[in-house]
């Protein structure tokens, strides 16, 4: 198994306060689907921000796709995030002034590496494929603020999936959906991840979703920092 994330003795604190995160060992392998949970305020979003390379941890070791993130240049981390990761927020995933299609294409437009060898045409074909699978192909020309919350979350998923990233991080993406929409969203996301062999880290405090995931991690269990 090929490790996507290899985390050792990672410590993180805001300013000089006591540690928020202190994780001795955590590894995620390629193609895994992980359910990460814990009460709010336990450092879930902070961990995700560190994994995405947006906030820098100074102590320990964090290897993402084999690249050491601790002490790495911001531009390197930005580029890895842009080209090989997808991120889905809890809500308000979309840039309000762009239409749905532009929102989905945005990461590929900003990071030429993510486009791989696709030209504009095949990029749009691929985008339509994913949109169809997520059942949003009929709203591509609408403005981001004209569609429902459920649609917005699926658009965000499509954006995260386009360009075949190795890792998708989803931070409570279903919390604004009702239970039917929640399961449908998960099904769609899973089938797309499997088709692309994408690793998924799914954060939620909703334990009813646990059953869909083969591996579960409670953050308070691996986090030695006591809050």
């Amino acid at each position, binding site marked *: 198994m090929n490790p996507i994330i290899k985390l050792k003795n990672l410590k993180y604190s805001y300013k000089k306060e006591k540690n928020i995160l202190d994780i001795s060992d955590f590894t995620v392998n390629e193609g895994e689907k992980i359910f990460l949970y814990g009460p709010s305020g336990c450092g879930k*979003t*902070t961990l*995700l*921000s560190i994994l*995405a390379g*947006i*906030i820098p941890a100074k102590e320990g070791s964090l290897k993402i796709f084999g690249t050491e993130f601790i002490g790495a240049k*911001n*531009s390197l981390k*930005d*580029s890895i*995030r*842009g*080209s090989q*990761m997808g*991120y889905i*927020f*809890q*809500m*308000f*995933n*979309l*840039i*309000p*002034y*762009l239409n749905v299609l532009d929102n989905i294409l*945005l*990461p590929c*437009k*900003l*990071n030429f590496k*993510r486009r791989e060898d696709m030209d504009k045409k095949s990029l749009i074909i691929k985008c339509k494929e994913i949109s169809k699978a997520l059942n949003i192909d009929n709203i591509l020309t609408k403005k981001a603020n004209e569609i429902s919350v459920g649609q917005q979350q699926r658009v965000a998923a499509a*954006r995260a999936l386009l360009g075949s990233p190795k890792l998708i991080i989803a*931070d409570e993406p279903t919390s604004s959906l009702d239970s039917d929409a929640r399961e449908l969203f998960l099904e769609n996301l899973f089938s797309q991840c499997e088709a692309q062999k994408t690793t998924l880290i799914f954060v939620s405090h909703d334990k009813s979703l646990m059953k869909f995931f083969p591996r579960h991690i409670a953050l308070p269990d691996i986090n030695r920092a006591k809050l």
Partner: protein
Amino acid sequence: MIYLFKIASQSLWNRKISTLLTIFSIAMSIMLFLGVERVRQGAKESFSNTISKTDLVVGARGSEIQLLLYTVFHMGNATNNISWHTYNHFKNNSDVAWTIPFSLGDSYNGHRVIATDQNFYLHYQFFGNKKIEFKEGNTPNDIYDVALGAEMATKENLKLGDNIALTHGISEGLGILIHKDKPFTVTAILKETGTPIDRAAFITLEGMEAIHIDWQNGVPAINKKNANTQKIKKEDIKIEQITSFLIGANSRISSLSLQREINNYKKEPIMGVIPGVALSQLWETVSYAETALQIVSIFVVIIGLIGMMVSLYTSLESRRREMAILRAIGAGRIVIVHLLVAEAIFLSFSGCLFGVFFCYFFVACIQSLLLQNLGILISLTALSFHEYLYLIFVVILSALISHIPAIKAYRNSLIDGLSIRT
């Protein structure tokens, strides 16, 4: 980068009102700057073209600028007159091609009345080689004939054949002493010249002498028996003195020796001034105001740009979500900074574009008004190289100062990480 401009423009469009107001304020400041420059050039052009092809202006010794002001611009008063004898002395000089005598001192409703002779209509030139032309009527010839400048005729609603009584001295409206006993008849109206000539009236030297014929010490004679208008004949009038005169020399070089001769003239304290030299001296004194105006307009542009920066800066708070999304999909510091710089460039560039457009529109609107009221002709010329440079500088400056909100945006995104605040 091109894609960033696309995002930037859509982001700006999302905030239409504040974007349009920002562009408008930059456009107004650019318009002011270019407008000031246009007016300045127009004023300078009109100013230095008031007189041309004249080699020397001669008058009583004193300030060169003052001589130019009262002779050419009809402003202020002469310190002293010069004698007819002296005038003739130089008129008959072999280096002199032509002369135009002027006798000043009277007015009509605030319009200067200038006494001169036929040479004025033959030799006076302005705006290069333009000469005085008649809209109606002919050269005033008789004692009580008067030719009116175009603007004066319209303003005072006078036409050919009207009689007017001149006021002694220069005064707005009715003066204390009016030459009621000797009315003048309008025999000509001049074509528009775009110079102070438009606002003046022209009579003959004899006419000027005639209305003051029985005066003593600057007041009318108490004993009025000689003052019968109709009895005075042109041939009988002996001209005693004039105020100043213009000289056209046979050649430019001889004008220098003529000037020396005039300045060294022993019999009377007179001086000769080369109009070009005095004009540029005069313009220099005026140019302080011009520089001040320019500095003010530069500050207005800077304030416009600061306004733009403030509007970008305050927009950031409501755009934290947008920035977090951009960061999440791989936008680094450079992309965030470039996005805001692109927005600033977009704003200032549109501002410049509209500013230029407003400026031309404004100039086109007030062009005729300025020409009529101030005699300033503002031409709708293309932007000069310097002005293009200046506009480019404005865009560059806006890109530079937009780094302040840009860096703030990036800092915000570092603080927020991937937690979304709305």
